[in-house]
């Protein structure tokens, strides 16, 4: 092995045997025990968990990472702070978290391959990639009352006129923290930590009761 960065990193597929090992989403307990009202025609907010996606934290220089991402995923880093961009299929997203940190979300099972290709491409550059798929989960909120629901939950200004599509911020959510992103006109996303998932879920059910919130499973 050459003395490249790749050879010094112990890289393994944390989901290699997922076919034989049962996996539970961070909301598995909540969906069983905290209730999951079915969406109805009156629902102005519909909640759904996008479980088992691949979440990768990329750290390093923006130019180096941007070039590597364009080669590997055919999409670059978002140019502005607090924004996110999607690839052509809309399945993979990259979000600015801090001047040297981005969150890459890819479809489930892809994280290992993407990480390895990025590491091969980045080689000796100064960078870090951490697979945090097991530590957080993505919730989507859809409906016209989502901004009202979020206004009760986060300190950030989520008025649609201020929070354009493609914006994403890390902010205080209830008494925890969450990443709030807007992926469409009436479609919003929350990235919550696994340890706070049940709390945030129950908060959303409680806050969304007046909008007849429904949970799609």
């Amino acid at each position: 092995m050459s003395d490249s960065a790749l050879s010094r990193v112990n890289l393994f597929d944390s989901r290699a045997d997922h076919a034989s090992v049962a996996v539970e989403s961070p909301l598995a307990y909540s969906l069983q025990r905290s209730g999951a009202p079915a969406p109805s025609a009156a629902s102005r907010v519909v909640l759904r968990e996008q479980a088992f996606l691949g979440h990768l934290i990329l750290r390093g220089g923006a130019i180096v990472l941007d070039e590597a991402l364009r080669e590997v995923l055919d999409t670059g880093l978002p140019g502005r702070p607090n924004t996110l961009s999607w690839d052509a299929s809309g399945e993979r997203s990259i979000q600015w978290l801090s001047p040297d940190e981005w969150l890459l979300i890819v479809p489930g099972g892809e994280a290992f391959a993407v990480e390895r290709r990025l590491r091969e491409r980045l080689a000796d550059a100064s960078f870090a990639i951490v697979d945090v798929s097991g530590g957080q989960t993505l919730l989507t909120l859809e409906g016209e009352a989502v901004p009202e629901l979020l206004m009760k939950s986060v300190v950030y200004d989520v008025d649609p006129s201020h929070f354009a599509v493609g914006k994403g911020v890390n902010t205080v959510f209830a008494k925890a923290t969450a990443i709030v992103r807007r992926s469409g006109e009436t479609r919003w996303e929350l990235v919550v930590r696994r340890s706070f998932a049940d709390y945030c879920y129950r908060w959303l059910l409680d806050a969304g009761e007046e909008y007849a919130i429904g949970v799609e499973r």
Partner: protein
Amino acid sequence: MFQIYCPYCEELREEEEFHPKGQAHIVRPADPEACSDEEWGDYLFFRDNPRGIHHEMWVHAVGCRKFFNVTRHTVSYAILETYKIGEQPSVTAEPSAGEAAASTADVRQGVRA
């Protein structure tokens, strides 16, 4: 609503997302071995407590998690500017009485109501 401008996020964010981290621009002695106990003690433990302009470090704890500098007035609590780590403050002296009256409206934005 009390908002602070984060120079890394490039927008005003809620106070709740930030933490103060003490005096800014403290330089570690280049050669600690050559310091007297008094010099080293000053560096480690003694901080300014001015009446007026004060340069502080804050961290955007629930956001980009970067440290940055704030110039704050310790009497009015007004935040006069925020700037990135490694940069130098542009506000280093109290405005004169005339300037202070003229800029009251701006200053109020950074004061807790």
